[in-house]
């Protein structure tokens, strides 16, 4: 590992004696602050006994900023009344402190390299660092600063007037004014320049040696339930409900129910169970043919066969990929900036997930690909990649999906780059670890044993690919890694267009400049070039995360999470509380040359069979989507502030079973769905209501509302409009004049919602109304609302009317005047059952009434189309519309 100047552990120059407070301030500090903030046990590591120590600061950085009372934490805390706790200092005392900080600008005696590293990191290394070394100058280490570049040594210790770095900064030549905007660098403040000068004057001393501190944990902290490897429990033996046991899930669930004197609800109706299974596994209703086939299947294991069939379907993969994409925070645009720039390659990640689900990629391998697919094999050496090779690397899109506005020079500061990394850590924390690790960005986690060091060590795992000091814009962070035929097709398509563009550009260049007469021609050519460019097929690139190669910048703990407040330097590591815990240690090793192996080692660490969190978190998520509630209700938080498992033994049994079954998701679905627990009706008995009001014990199945995609897709399927085309670039959306955002269905090909453009600023209205979440950065649990905008959408959206009338037309073609058969067909399509005789009769009556009303209305309107036909079409359309917006359609028993 390259040695950085900062880390050169040389003996520190002895610090000068501490400058003390002036008398007025000393009294205030002594009587109000030093009680808690002094000595070895100083609160928050902050010692306020001398001004020197106060300036050294504690966990949240220096207590004050010389010359700026307003910018000082000490003053902020006192003014806000949060310090001293429960007391408010009199104004004259506050004024004394302010005056001292503002006027006397108390500075620290011994300025060391640690004080100037922020300046170099924030303002210089973009152009004088790892990838770019303007003028041959590298400002990352003390050695390289001394060595300097083409113009000579960068600094001369003890001689500020001879130190080029300082001179160029002071002259305003560096950072170069012309490059400030584009490189997103701002010149150092006057304080920073003063510090630099003081440091050079003092002989440019190195940072003091701080012995590394390891976090310690109490026994209570270590013994938290979710940090212990799951141990496979014995399956309980049951008394009177033993007959209801179809598999061990039932034993665990019934054991708890029995203890409360409860049992299962009756089994759901055959067709209701079928409808539930279809929506759960495929996100779609069954077709009429599928309902009929299942009705006709009288074999004893018809249901189990159905589950297997659904697990094998393409629709399954689309449904469960969508669920994973929520966890990843999938979006087709960058967000953050108003422009909300599109990510034309994001869909390749989506498709890689769909394909992984379809082939039931074992979760350990799936997760490894999501986190470190690029490090599994040296993809750069693969000249003729197959789809599977591409998918492996594209899977790292998992860590490229959060909002990222850093392509814009106005939003690409080091701090904003760090926000991107923070979002990725939140995705990993909530989706994979089930821990709120993001809380430790600014301070130690308040509830869980996750220290601030842990956060920055996780951040260091990503640093080799996401280096905030050596940033690649998200729009340029793509890999040219594609199928040969796809590349060839794009090249073939683009070659004549490129030629045409070149021709036009030549003509444009030939136009006389600043000649008014030439303007029309210039405009025409400019337009023509733009038109041609729009025809170009994008290069088949993938939006992946990949190691940048070489030694990444060091990672510092950031006090209070602030980019400028560099603390100790940290190496990549997993959360310390999980060290040991029966797990192999995290040890990054380059799997091939040019990559650090930091993420691959992390993935390997996560996917150890005995990992206490990985399998538990995933089976819990599966459980939630089948049963409506997780065994741990807070699916993304297995920490102290999360909820405790309702069935801890069941969770552990499932977690160990998951691993034993080769991390197969499909086997887990099958296990859950073939249990008696899953087959219960969604009706609560009075006893169950009383003894298990929130259904935590699973005394029945919950009645659930379709989610946004289930509704969108099922409506299309029921009306016969759903295209089953899979994969490929996102279907664009358009905003209709009224404001409704709708997909642009081409040639009446309406596709599943997973394939629609997920632009952050223009969510499809129908999906948004039914709780499609904004991804910020991801979504562990969708909110679930019942609001009148949904009613307005279902009743008044022209899109729903179009769908309903589309089906009405087909029904009329098929059944002519036989309204009763139309009604039956519609029931089968929308509710997956046949209507009762009474329902048919009522529906026929309703259609007749509507038809009368329509005829009258059309006559009054003097419509030109034949009234009778239009009236009947619209009446049947209204009936279909009512069925689509009915509670029975959208609620799943």
């Amino acid at each position, binding site marked *: 590992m390259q040695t950085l100047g900062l880390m050169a552990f040389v003996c520190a120059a002895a610090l000068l004696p501490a400058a003390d407070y002036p008398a007025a301030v000393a009294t205030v500090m002594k009587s109000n602050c030093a009680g808690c903030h002094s000595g070895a046990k100083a609160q928050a590591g902050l010692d306020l006994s001398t001004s020197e120590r106060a300036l050294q600061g504690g966990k949240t950085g220096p207590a004050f900023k010389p010359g700026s009372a307003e910018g000082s934490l000490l003053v902020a805390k006192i003014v806000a009344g949060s310090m001293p706790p429960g007391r408010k200092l009199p104004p004259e005392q506050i004024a004394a402190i302010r005056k001292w900080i503002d006027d006397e600008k108390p500075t620290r005696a011994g300025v060391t390299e640690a004080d100037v590293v922020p300046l170099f990191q924030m303002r210089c290394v973009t152009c004088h660092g790892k990838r770019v070394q303007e003028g041959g100058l590298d400002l990352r280490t003390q050695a390289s600063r001394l060595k300097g570049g083409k113009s000579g040594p960068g600094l001369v210790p003890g001689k500020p007037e001879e130190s080029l770095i300082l001179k160029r900064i002071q002259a305003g030549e560096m950072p170069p004014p012309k490059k400030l905007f584009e490189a997103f660098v701002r010149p150092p403040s006057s304080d920073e320049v003063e510090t630099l000068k003081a440091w050079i004057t003092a002989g440019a001393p190195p940072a003091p040696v701080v012995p590394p501190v390891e976090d310690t944990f109490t026994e209570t902290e270590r013994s938290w339930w979710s940090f212990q490897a799951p141990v496979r429990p014995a399956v309980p033996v049951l008394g009177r409900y033993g007959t209801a046991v179809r598999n061990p899930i039932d034993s665990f669930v019934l054991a708890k129910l029995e203890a409360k004197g409860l049992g299962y609800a009756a089994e759901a109706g055959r067709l209701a169970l079928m409808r539930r299974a279809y929506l759960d596994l495929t996100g779609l209703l069954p077709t009429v043919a599928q309902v009929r086939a299942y009705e006709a299947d009288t074999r004893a294991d018809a249901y189990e066969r159905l589950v297997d069939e659904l697990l094998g379907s393409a629709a399954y993969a689309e449904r469960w990929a969508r669920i994973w994409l929520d966890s990843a925070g999938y979006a087709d645009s960058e967000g953050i900036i108003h422009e909300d720039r599109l990510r034309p390659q994001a869909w390749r990640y989506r498709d890689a997930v769909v394909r992984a689900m379809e082939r039931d990629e074992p979760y350990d391998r799936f997760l490894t690909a999501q986190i470190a697919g690029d490090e599994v094999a040296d993809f750069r050496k693969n000249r003729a990649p197959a789809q599977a090779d591409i998918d492996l690397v594209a899977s790292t899109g998992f860590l490229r999906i959060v909002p990222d506005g850093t392509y814009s020079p106005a*939003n690409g500061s080091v701090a904003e780059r760090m926000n991107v990394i923070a979002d990725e850590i939140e995705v990993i924390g909530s989706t994979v670890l089930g821990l709120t690790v993001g809380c430790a960005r600014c301070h130690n986690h308040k509830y869980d044993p996750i220290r601030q060091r842990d956060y920055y060590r996780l951040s260091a795992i990503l640093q080799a690919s996401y280096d905030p000091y050596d940033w690649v814009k998200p729009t340029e962070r793509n890999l040219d890694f594609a199928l040969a035929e796809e590349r060839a097709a794009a090249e073939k398509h683009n070659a004549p267009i490129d030629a045409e563009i070149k021709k036009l550009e030549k003509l444009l260049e030939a136009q006389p400049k600043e000649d008014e007469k030439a303007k029309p021609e210039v405009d025409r050519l400019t337009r023509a070039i733009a038109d041609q460019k729009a025809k170009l097929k994008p290069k088949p690139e993938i939006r992946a995360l990949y190691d940048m190669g070489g030694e990444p910048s060091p990672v510092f703990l950031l006090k209070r999470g602030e980019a400028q407040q560099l603390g100790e330097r940290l190496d990549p590591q997993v959360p310390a509380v999980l060290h040991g815990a029966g797990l192999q240690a995290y040890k990054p090793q380059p799997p091939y040359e040019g990559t650090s192996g930091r993420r691959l080692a992390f993935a390997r660490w996560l996917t150890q069979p005995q990992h206490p969190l990985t399998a538990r978190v995933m089976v819990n998520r599966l459980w939630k989507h089948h049963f409506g509630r997780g065994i741990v209700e807070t699916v993304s938080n297995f920490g102290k502030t999360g909820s405790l498992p309702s069935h801890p033994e069941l969770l552990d049994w499932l977690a160990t079973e998951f691993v034993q079954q080769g991390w197969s998701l499909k086997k887990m679905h099958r296990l859950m769905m073939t249990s008696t627990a899953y087959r219960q009706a969604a009706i609560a008995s009075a006893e169950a209501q009383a003894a298990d009001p929130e259904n935590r014990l699973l005394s029945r199945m919950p009645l659930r509302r379709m989610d946004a995609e289930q509704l969108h897709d099922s409506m299309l399927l029921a009306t016969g409009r759903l295209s089953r085309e899979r994969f490929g670039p996102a279907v664009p959306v358009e905003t209709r004049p009224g404001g409704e955002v709708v997909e642009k269905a081409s040639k009446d090909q309406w596709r599943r919602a997973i394939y629609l453009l997920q632009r952050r600023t223009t969510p499809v209205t129908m999906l948004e109304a039914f709780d499609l979440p904004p991804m910020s950065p991801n979504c562990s649990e969708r909110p679930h609302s019942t*609001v009148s905008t949904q009613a307005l*959408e279902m009743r008044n959206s022209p899109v729903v*009317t179009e769908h309903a009338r589309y089906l009405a037309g087909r029904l009329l073609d098929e059944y002519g005047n036989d309204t009763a058969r139309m009604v039956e067909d519609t029931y089968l399509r929308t509710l997956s059952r046949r209507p009762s005789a009474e329902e048919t009769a009522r529906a026929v009556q309703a259609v007749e009434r*509507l038809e009368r009303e329509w005829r009258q209305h059309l006559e009054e309107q003097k419509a030109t189309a034949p009234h009778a036909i239009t009236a009947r079409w619209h009446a049947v359309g209204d009936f279909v519309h*009512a069925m689509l917006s009915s509670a029975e359609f959208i609620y799943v028993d």
Partner: protein
Amino acid sequence: MSIERTTRRGFFGRMMDGVQGAALASLALADAARASSGTYDLSPKKPHFDGKAKAVIHLFMNGGPSQVDLFDPKPALVKHAGSAPSRDIVNQIEFADQIGVMMPSPFGFKRYGKCGMEMTELMPHLGTVVDEIAFIRSMYGEHFNHEPSLYLMHSGRTLPGRPSLGAWVTYGLGSVNQNLPAYVVLDDPKGLPINLTQNWQSGWLPPIFQGTRFRSEGLPLLNLKPPEELPSPLVEAQRDLLRSLDEAHRARRPGVGELDARIASYELAARMQMAATDALDLSKESDATREMYGLNEEATQSYGRRCLMARRLVERGVRFVQIFIEGQIWDNHSDLEKSLKYSCAKTDRPIAALIRDLKQRGLLDSTLLLWGGEFGRMPISQIRAGGTAGRDHGPGGFTTWMAGGGVKGGVVHGATDEIGHKAVQDRVSVHDFHATMLHCLGLRFRDLAFTRHSLQERLTDQYPARVVNEILV
């Protein structure tokens, strides 16, 4: 207008919009039990204490109005005119390649009202109601670009994804009118603001607290009515069919509260057609009122309509109204003289009318007005090719104002430095501003919390915040 718990009967009379298996009965009893049960609704909630304000109108000034040209006179700029900016100003500029020189305001300042407030000559109408207004001259932000600053101003952090002010307020207080959305956004027909609809999102608060866009032209709400106007017997026939289907479905599933909530939400949708149309029907206003808001003049009619609509909405019990303005009219990067005149002419008269109108109707004491942009502007000029001098973004110090709803009139709080660049005296952060707003409504910023990932989230997040008591009655 009371935000105390309503009677059971009155409540059922109005119905509600409910979430998550919310049985009507349990909703009727809900009071300040915010975030307790995972069940949310818009029924009125008790505040933490008796606040003066019952409603908020947020006049958001997109683009960042220039404090040194409007409300924060800086004679020293005349003295320094033409001199180069200091390193610390350059350090904080967005367009670092277009840096100009110290530039005094091209406009004059005048004293207005009994309080003798010194402010721009470009806002004579506001001058007539200045005794109702408290100016905060010491606001400061955290970022010099629009998007993060808008997120900050609207949701307390410079990042997207958090609930907006209106979402927090309606989460905390619910609404007294269940036939209208609790949180209404009146955006400019000329286009959505920066960050689009994210300015009024509910983030991770339940979606019922999201702002509802009312358009000030045409149909107020998306899909409020069916695509074609149909005679009522036909509409009745359609409605009867759906109702009979839903009632039969519910009858087979007794005790599932969510199904009741669903039926209620459909009924509310129908009533909302009437209520929303009526609320925005400005033809019911007198000629004098229309004239006062500037509805008869081209320059003021668009913004005036929205100000008048805001008053009608607040009158009807809507809790939070936000008015946005076209594009970025305060974003005066170039042609400061021309563009600032335009923005002032467009908004001055309508805003003054709104204050006067609320006052004469006795609503000003219970309605809090917030005025301000996402930041202010620089005391130096910005030189951009093809235009005359403008000013770049200035988050270091800027002016906002509050009026009504428990705020003192005719006062100034805080100050910027000699040139109006940085807030130096009695600095007010955006979090302080938010905390003050909540305080006016009777909500304590530390206690208005929502549990997410099992953590307590607040509008002011973990930032130290302080209620600006100095401007409160």
